[in-house]
């Protein structure tokens, strides 16, 4: 019923940015190369006020991607039905072009931990995650995208690769994938594998959106580089190169720049979106 009036049925293969309220006026005036916006679902679950008013305005001019950060799809327990109902309410009200969540967990029993926590990749977790995604897609009545995480450690209990895990989840549930190339770079560096090999093995045909973001550098106990997915600075050149490598193989996709901490003035974020747009143009050429 809503779809009949849906102004933006899908995300365009253009660059987008993670929306920050401090950029509202500039985006509404001139968004430059930015063709769509992504919001964190949980920030728009209040009853009213400025957040929902801004979102209503934005959604009249831009395709919106709703990106959940609190559903805990990788959790051991059942999904939080209240939270799922809030997501359904938001999606029914906003009718966004896309909904995505993370291959991670963030809640356990009564505690919400406000971080994207890791899980091992094996048959037990595969079944659990697939069941949760089936439930999400059934409740929301739409396909969702599942994002690859940033990893700082691995599990003895894993017996398959992350790319294999994501491929099987996508094939089994029909969900699309959200490929975060910064997360690939961070995880590959941290766990000692090739980011290009990860891309080569990724189910690129199922990718509905690509993310880019900045990370910080640290060291582990052994003095090896330990990259932290902080979303607090510009995307570094090796990640832009990994994006080019990916787009050559996947073709163009909706491409998002995330900058969530130490949020810059609009011109700096717009410049990152410009660079993302240039990467898409290059891939088209």
């Amino acid at each position, binding site marked *: 019923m809503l779809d009949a009036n849906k102004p933006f049925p899908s995300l365009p293969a253009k660059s987008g940015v993670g929306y920050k309220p401090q950029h509202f006026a500039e985006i509404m005036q001139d968004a430059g190369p930015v063709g769509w916006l992504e919001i964190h679902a949980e920030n728009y679950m209040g009853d*009213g006020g400025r957040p929902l008013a801004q979102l209503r305005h934005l959604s009249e001019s831009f395709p919106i991607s709703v990106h959940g950060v609190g559903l805990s799809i990788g959790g051991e327990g059942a999904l939080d039905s209240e939270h799922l109902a809030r997501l359904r309410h938001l999606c029914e009200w906003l009718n966004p072009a896309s909904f995505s969540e993370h291959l991670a967990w963030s809640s*356990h029993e009564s505690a919400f*931990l406000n971080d994207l926590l890791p899980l091992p990749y094996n048959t037990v977790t595969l079944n659990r995650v697939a069941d949760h995604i089936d439930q999400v897609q059934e409740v929301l009545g739409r396909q969702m995208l599942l994002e690859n995480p940033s990893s700082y450690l691995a*599990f003895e209990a894993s017996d398959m690769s992350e790319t294999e895990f994501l491929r099987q989840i996508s094939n089994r549930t029909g969900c699309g994938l959200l490929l975060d190339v910064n997360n690939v770079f961070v995880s590959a560096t941290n766990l000692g594998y090739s980011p290009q090999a990860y891309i080569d093995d990724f189910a690129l045909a199922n990718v509905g959106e690509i993310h880019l973001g900045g990370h910080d550098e640290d060291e582990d*106990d*052994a003095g090896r580089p330990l990259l932290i997915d902080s979303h607090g600075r510009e995307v570094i050149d090796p990640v832009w190169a990994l994006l080019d490598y990916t787009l050559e193989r996947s073709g163009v996709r909706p491409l998002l720049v995330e900058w969530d901490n130490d949020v810059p003035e609009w011109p700096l974020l717009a410049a990152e979106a410009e660079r993302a747009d240039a990467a898409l143009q290059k891939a088209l050429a």
Partner: protein
Amino acid sequence: MNNHTAFTSALLDPALPVPEGLLDGFGASAGKRFSVYRNNVTVSLIDALHEGFPAIVKLLGEANFSNVARDYLRAEPPSSPLMMLYGRGFPDYLAACPPLAKFGYLCDVARLEFALRESYHAADATPIAPQDFAQIAPEQLAQVKITLTPSARLITSAWPVFSLWRYNMQDGAEKPIARAESTLITRPEYDPIPHLLPSGGDIFLNAIIAQNSLEEAASQASEKHSNFDLSTILSTLLSSQAISHLSLEDQP
């Protein structure tokens, strides 16, 4: 299999060892790598409290605030993914925190800050216009019942909570003096505004919230405070768009 129980406990208690079965990707155990998650959880929740309670940060100082916030988040991590609601229990935690017991006002200042946040996210409502009062026949005015907008909040306190908040949040604000203060929060459009209530204002508004008539609420306030001034508080409610509805019991 309760792997997430051990993982969660270790995230919230740095004295616990790193959970078993975690690797660094190079054949050794994860060690310090687990601290990335521990740090993300701790810092992001301290930041959320910091953002939500700026006057408490000023009153305690940055370092003290971070210490108290760290203890609080370990004792009471969020119970929902809606971070906009995190910290509802923080005022009571401050009141029960032994080193802070002598600063009895902290709890009420924190209640005021949390109420500002609730007001910010509350449902929209169309306020009545001042002339809507004129639509009511003078002889019926006493029996009118007032409904406040969903974004209105009343904070009563035995401490000068409004002045403490303002002194810490606004440059050049007057120093607080020792007295009880009650605060009305309204949200004319999108930004909540605290108003210091005149004497009796809290009694009046509590009676209004309990759906007493205008006359009954005013008389309750006047009984305790002979200088209670109905027109001042009605003017505040109207000018700050805090009334969503007027009703008369006898009318359908």
